[in-house]
């Protein structure tokens, strides 16, 4: 039997995080270094996945399968395909950078902070690997706890309100998903195996009920309009690393959920609901962008821009064609990198100025030129300039949307104008114009900070100029997913006799 690579990936950071608690509290340097090492090793551990991954098949790879609660037919089963592997890489990278950006920013309960972050990493990886619905649900809810603590303990002044809002919002959605899961179990041949559940035919009525139950969980996480209002609060109050993980990975879970469950398991309902979903996506794009114009708080602005960008993601998703889906998945990675990078950068200046008020800034390009260069590149990626990763994702999504329902792409494309407007305006207010008082003599970026941002620069340009490095992972898996949605090759597949006889 081969190495249980995925289990290692899930439990290494969890055990590592717990081991941090054994280090004496006053040895701060050791704690930080250990946290960094653990996250780095975790990143290295994803390397064999990339090297051994077979891009030519949609079948789950690196699978593990153990009975967990046999009475209820719940299994501990893991596996990844071309879609989930990208998210694993993203997660592992983002956690390393989050550790780096928290190096000095976190001064209180350092040990607990890094433990929470590593536990969170384990849970996030678990979500992307789980192929059993209950296991998935366990990881899904497990993510909530460390994040709840990270915002609630290490957050800003209004952190309690923000974290409770975040918790309740997501929990409410998740509970409906749990009901959905149980329903599926009842009607899907008494199994929690995601792959088996996907291969079956359900009545349209049931599909619709399940679609909306899942929608409740996933739409909140994405977040789609109008259930987005937890995001600005959570982002604003969270510490930099919290915002980064939230933006880069956590909110991808919603879209990933749609991909993994709604589309393949509920194809008819998905197709029926395409138009409403596209409408919500387009609203999110324009609405999020317009609201950005009114923001006076740096982090709030980027949070609302996430709503707009995630609108692109769901637009591509529900375009239900190859380009739309590939663009959507790529855009999730892109958004993770770019918005993650923006929050990293914001964390860095916040450490120096201790204000999130945009109006307090001005002229930083004179005082921190290198930082301005980094931020400019992130800004350009956010507005989808060709040559950066943002363009590839948005272009594919618009193409997919256009092929599916032209109006959706036309309205969505207006987001490009608004996006340029609010992002360049933000950039101008922070970096250009006269140097404001209090903005002189800011410390230039140190080596640690440059090393934190540099990987983002490389990835943004690499994906922008050679997206096939990532897209090639997706082709087969996405094509298979589309076959499932459109019923090609699966039509008429009846329940296996053994399963059909079950009560």
């Amino acid at each position, binding site marked *: 039997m081969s190495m249980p690579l995925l289990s290692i990936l899930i439990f290494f950071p969890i055990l590592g995080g717990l081991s941090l608690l054994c280090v004496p509290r006053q040895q701060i340097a050791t704690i930080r270094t250990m946290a960094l090492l653990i996250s780095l090793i975790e990143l290295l551990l994803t390397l064999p996945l990339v090297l051994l991954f077979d891009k030519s098949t949609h079948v789950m790879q690196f699978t593990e399968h153990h009975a967990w609660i046999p009475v209820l037919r719940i299994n501990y089963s893991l596996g990844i395909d071309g879609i989930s592997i990208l998210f694993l890489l993203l997660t592992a990278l983002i956690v390393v950078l989050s550790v780096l950006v928290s190096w000095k920013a976190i001064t209180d309960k350092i040990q607990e902070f890094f433990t929470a972050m590593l536990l969170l990493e384990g849970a996030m990886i678990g979500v992307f690997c789980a192929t059993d619905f209950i296991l998935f649900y366990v990881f899904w809810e497990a993510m909530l706890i460390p994040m709840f603590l990270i915002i609630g303990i290490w957050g800003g002044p209004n952190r309690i309100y923000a974290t409770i*809002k975040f918790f*309740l*919002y997501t929990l409410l959605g998740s509970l409906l998903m749990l009901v959905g899961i149980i329903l599926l179990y009842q009607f899907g041949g008494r199994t929690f195996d995601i792959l088996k559940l996907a291969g079956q035919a359900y009545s349209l009525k049931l599909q619709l009920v399940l679609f909306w139950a899942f929608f409740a969980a996933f739409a909140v996480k994405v977040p789609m309009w*109008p259930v987005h*209002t*937890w995001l600005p609060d959570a982002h604003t109050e969270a510490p930099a690393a919290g915002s980064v993980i939230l933006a880069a990975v956590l909110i991808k879970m919603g879209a990933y959920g749609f991909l993994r469950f709604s589309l393949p398991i509920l194809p008819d309902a998905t197709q029926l609901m395409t138009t409403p979903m596209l409408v919500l996506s387009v609203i999110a794009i324009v*609405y999020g962008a*317009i*609201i*950005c*114009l*009114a*923001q006076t708080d740096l982090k709030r602005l980027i949070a609302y821009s996430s709503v707009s960008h995630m609108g692109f993601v769901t637009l591509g998703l529900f375009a239900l*064609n*190859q*380009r739309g889906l*590939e*663009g959507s998945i790529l855009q999730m990675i892109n958004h993770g990198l770019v918005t993650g990078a923006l929050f990293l950068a914001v964390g860095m200046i916040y450490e120096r100025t201790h204000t999130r008020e945009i109006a307090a800034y001005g*002229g930083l*390009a*004179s005082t921190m030129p290198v930082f301005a*260069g980094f931020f400019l590149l992130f800004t*350009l990626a956010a507005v989808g*300039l*060709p*040559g950066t990763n943002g*363009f*590839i994702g948005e*272009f*594919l999504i*618009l*193409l997919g949307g*256009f*092929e599916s329902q*032209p109006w959706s*792409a*036309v309205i969505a*494309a*207006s987001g*490009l*104008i608004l996006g*340029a*407007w609010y992002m*360049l*305006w933000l950039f*101008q207010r922070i*970096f*250009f*114009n*006269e*140097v404001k008082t209090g903005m002189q003599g800011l410390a230039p970026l140190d080596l640690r900070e440059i090393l934190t941002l540099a990987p983002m620069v490389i990835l943004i340009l690499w994906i922008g*100029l*050679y*997206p*096939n490095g990532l*897209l*090639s992972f997706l*082709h087969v898996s996405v094509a298979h997913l589309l076959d499932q949605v459109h019923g090609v090759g699966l039509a008429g597949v009846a329940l296996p006799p053994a399963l059909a006889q079950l009560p």
Partner: protein
Amino acid sequence: MPASLLAIPLLPLASFVITLLVGRRWGTRAHWLPIVAVLFSFGCALAAFFRVRSGVIINQDVYTWILSGNLVVSFGFLVDQLTAVMLIVVTSVSALVHIYSVGYMKGEEGYYRFFAYLSLFTFSMLMLVLGNNFLQLFFGWEAVGLSSYLLIGFYFNKQSAADAGKKAFIVNRFGDFGFLIGLLLVFTLFGSLHYQEVFSRVSELEMQKITLFGSQINAATLIALLLFCGAIGKSAQIPLHVWLPDAMEGPTPVSALIHAATMVTAGVFLVARCNPIFSLSPVVLNLITVLGAVTALFAATIALVQTDIKRVVAYSTVSQLAYMFIGCGVGAYSAGIFHLFTHAYFKALLFLGCGSVILGMHHEQDLRAMGGLKRQMPVTYVTFLLASLSIAGVPGLAGFFSKDEILLMAFNTDLAAGKFAWAIGTLVAFMTAFYSFRLLFLVFHGDFRGSEEQRHHLHESPPVVTWPLMLLAIGAVTAGWFGVPALLGGDNHWAHFLEPVLGHPHVQVSAATEALLMGGSILAGVCGIGLAYFLYRMRPHLPGLLAERLASVHRLLLNKYYIDELYDILLVRPALAASRKVVLGIVDLVCIEGVVNGLPRIIALVAERLRRLQDGQVSHYLAWMGGGALALAAVLLIGL
């Protein structure tokens, strides 16, 4: 693919990356790498040009950029006659501007940054013209936009400069919005974004109808219209012209290179490149022609009264770009490109001449503070004079041939808008000559009107500045000689060279008519110069008097027809107000948050009431129990 071809864009790219990363350490020597890179680029461009002349057309992919389903887009090069011409224009003007900047930007903060951005621009523009597919065009398109943004806002601590850069980028995005949707449509209809594939199957469009808002539209018309949106933005035509005059906030070499000679002509290039599509749609061709004519007139009238030396030339650029569009609009794409070519040289020369004046005047840009500079700045004066003669359409100089060709073709065409464009074009030729010589006289003739200190410091610019002027002057004089019409004993070599790509409309008018038209446009130019001489040399008090008499017109022109103010009132403010008050204030914070925060509040309220039931009084509990039991019994009894 020849390595020398790859080198054309890659040398400036390498120069950009290296200069940006380590140029700061080179201090005042930071210009060397960019200059060497662009010179080599120019050499390779010449080689490419001669290869094309010898009949070798290259269309080759470098690598696959995006692959998704049946979408395959490459980075690849198409080097045909059109590209070859553009390569020469871009690299030659860019090289001269690089050298000029050594003198102009001397001692400026961020010297290395300036040269790095120039390299970035050169790379981007070359990628734009070299691409063999729409998406690479778009890549270059946006990248030149970025360079323009960075260079307009070069003095970023100045709010007006930062504003102007942002404005340029955002206004262009309006055009790009249409452009991008055009690309989506092209791909949806052809399944490809590569020129060769699309243009070879372009006839399929004739049958295609697209339903839009309930009416049937020809697919070619829709695509052409959408692509043209991009051209309007980049080439600063009405209604998206507002960014170009503001772009003068950038250093003057940038105005010459980006905002006159090269980048702003990208829209013309786009139309010429896509001529197989545009030619299918007379509707759009008419629209381009009319818009060109209107913009030409509109910008020329503004240029008549501006007092900032760079603004005059900026509006002149808008007006001349419009000429190029008239050429394309009437189907004479090669004439449009011809004017693009000659304009690049005489307009770059005009701008760089302005820069030289600004240097000599110690960063004074107000015409009213100048005068009589020809004595102190002889080289600048003579070259500026040549450029002015060229733009005024004086026979024998570059501008004459290209402008004449456009006016001839406008008259010649069967298109409904042709004669209209010809008439306006001739009128604008008159105005062009007038405002160009008004500028010349105000700057170089008469008495000096600046301060004593300025007079004291007046000096000719250093050789590193004047040499590029002289070289450009050669272009401003001779660039037109490539396209001498048959009427004047030439063979219109230019049009024949570009014919394989751009085609050439049949000339129907007789030689006599052609001669008459030529005479007309010469007359217009001469009258313009004469009037300027009369008003600004013989009767210098008259312009002021005229401005007083026609105060309202003067004010309207001086304020650029209040278009900026109009956009501010109609677009910017409503958008910001809606954002703040309606979307954020009402929908987000009141409606959605009202529900989100209201729900827990209602639950808390109900819970509060229910909690009161548990008040610890045994008698109350007993009463509730009794009541409950009774109710249950009642239900059971009724149920039974």
